[in-house]
C-alpha cells in the first residue's frame, strides 16, 4: 500500500533549512541523471561528482532539519515523503537537463550565486549552518570554476555551441530572480543573524555572471521579468516527474532498506 506524504510545520528555521536542502537535492538529482549519458567520460565523472557533493550537502541540511523539527523524523523522510507542494527548491534547479549547454548554464547561474552564499553563511549565528557552510563553500568553488570554463568554451566555441548556449541562457534567465527572494519569516532570521540577506550578494552575482558571459561572447538577457513560486511549493511541471522517480521505491515499498 502506498505511503502517505508528510507535511512539516512553518517554523522559520525549519523552512529555511529545508528550502536549501531541497535546492541541493534537486540539482544533485538532476546531475545524477547524466551518469552514463554525458558527452565524454571526464564530464560523466565531473557531473556525478558534483551531484554527490550536492546530495552530501542536502543530507547534512536534512539531518539538521530533523533535529530542528524534533518530530522523530530522519533525513530520508523529508526527501522521500514530501509531495511536490511540500518542496521549496528554486524553480531554476528543477528545470530539465536539456542539452549539455542547458545543464551547464543552469549550473553556472546557480554556482555563481551559491558559492558566495555559502561563504557568507560561514558567519551565521547558527553554528550548525555555519559548519555545513564551511564544508560546502570549498565544493561549490570547484563547481563554479568548472561551469564557468564550460560556459566560455560553449559560448565562444562553434556557431552551433554558441547558439545553444545563448538559447539556454535566455530560457533559464527568468528563473534567476528567485535566488534573491526573501519572505517575512526569513526576514526575521536575517535580523537574528542566522540567515543572510541575498540582496547583499546581488551585485557580486551580476559581476561574476557578466564577466563570464562577456568572455563567452554571450549576451546578458535584457528581459528582467522573473518567474517565482518554488519557495512556496508552486513548481513547474518538471518537479513532479523528477520526484516520481526519486521517491518511487520508498512510496512503493515503504521503509525499504538495504
Amino acid at each position: 500500500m502506498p505511503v502517505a506524504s508528510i507535511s512539516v510545520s512553518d517554523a522559520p528555521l525549519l523552512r529555511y533549512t529545508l528550502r536549501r536542502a531541497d535546492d541541493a537535492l534537486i540539482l544533485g538529482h538532476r546531475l545524477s541523471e547524466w551518469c552514463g549519458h554525458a558527452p565524454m567520460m571526464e564530464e560523466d565523472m565531473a557531473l556525478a561528482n558534483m551531484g554527490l557533493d550536492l546530495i552530501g550537502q542536502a543530507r547534512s541540511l536534512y539531518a539538521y532539519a530533523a533535529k530542528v523539527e524534533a518530530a522523530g523524523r530522519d533525513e530520508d523522510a523529508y526527501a522521500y515523503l514530501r509531495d511536490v507542494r511540500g518542496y521549496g527548491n528554486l524553480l531554476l534547479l528543477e528545470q530539465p537537463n536539456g542539452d549539455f549547454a542547458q545543464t551547464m548554464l543552469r549550473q553556472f547561474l546557480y554556482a555563481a550565486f551559491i558559492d558566495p552564499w555559502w561563504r557568507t553563511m560561514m558567519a551565521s549565528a547558527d553554528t550548525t549552518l555555519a559548519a555545513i557552510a564551511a564544508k560546502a563553500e570549498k565544493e561549490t568553488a570547484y563547481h563554479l570554476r568548472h561551469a564557468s570554463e564550460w560556459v566560455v568554451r560553449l559560448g565562444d566555441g562553434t556557431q552551433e555551441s554558441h547558439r545553444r548556449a545563448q538559447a539556454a541562457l535566455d530560457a533559464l534567465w527568468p528563473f534567476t530572480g528567485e535566488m534573491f527572494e526573501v519572505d517575512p519569516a526569513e526576514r526575521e532570521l536575517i535580523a537574528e543573524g542566522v540567515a543572510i540577506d541575498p540582496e547583499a550578494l546581488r551585485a557580486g552575482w551580476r559581476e561574476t555572471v557578466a564577466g563570464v558571459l562577456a568572455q563567452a561572447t554571450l549576451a546578458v538577457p535584457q528581459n528582467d521579468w522573473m518567474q517565482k513560486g518554488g519557495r512556496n511549493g508552486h513548481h513547474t511541471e518538471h518537479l513532479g516527474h523528477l520526484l516520481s522517480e526519486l521517491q518511487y521505491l520508498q512510496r512503493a515499498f515503504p521503509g525499504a532498506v538495504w
Partner: protein
Amino acid sequence: MNAAALDRGAAVLDEARRIAGAVVDPEIPVLSIADLGVLREVRLNDGRIEVLITPTYSGCPAMTMIALEIELALEQAGLGPATVTTVLSPAWTTDWMSEDGRRKLTEYGVAPPAKSAGRRALFSTEEVACPQCGSADTSRLAEFGSTSCKALWRCNACREPFDYFRCH
C-alpha cells in the same frame, strides 16, 4: 579516581588512538585517517571510547566505511563497543594532511594537494609536480576524477597520466 586508575585510563586512550588512527581510507589505502587529519579526538565517555572524526567531502561515501572500520578495529582490540561521532566544525581541509601522508601519497603515485591559499581565482590552475618523474611540466585533464578527492592530470615530460589529490 586514584593515580593508578588515571594512568590506566591514559594508556587505554593512547592505545585506542593508535588503533583508530591506523584505519585507512578505503579509496587510498596507503593513507591512514591520522595521516589525512580525519581523526580529530579520542576520548572516554562513561568508560566507553568515543572517536571523533570529521568528514572530508560532504558526499564522500568512504566516511561510512571509515566509521565502521574504526568500530571494528576497536572491537577486535578488546576496547569496544566504541562510539564514532562525526563533527563538522572546524571543517576538514587538505592542509591537515601530515607530511608523512604527503610523502606516502607521492610514493603511491598520487600528487599531494597544494596548500589551499591559491584556490580562489576563477580560471586558475594549480602547479602540480608529477609524482612519477617529478617534472613540473604537467597539465590538467579533468577537474573531477575517480573519487571526490581526486582530479586527473598528465605529465608532459614522462607522458604518464596521474591522479592529483585536490586541494580542499
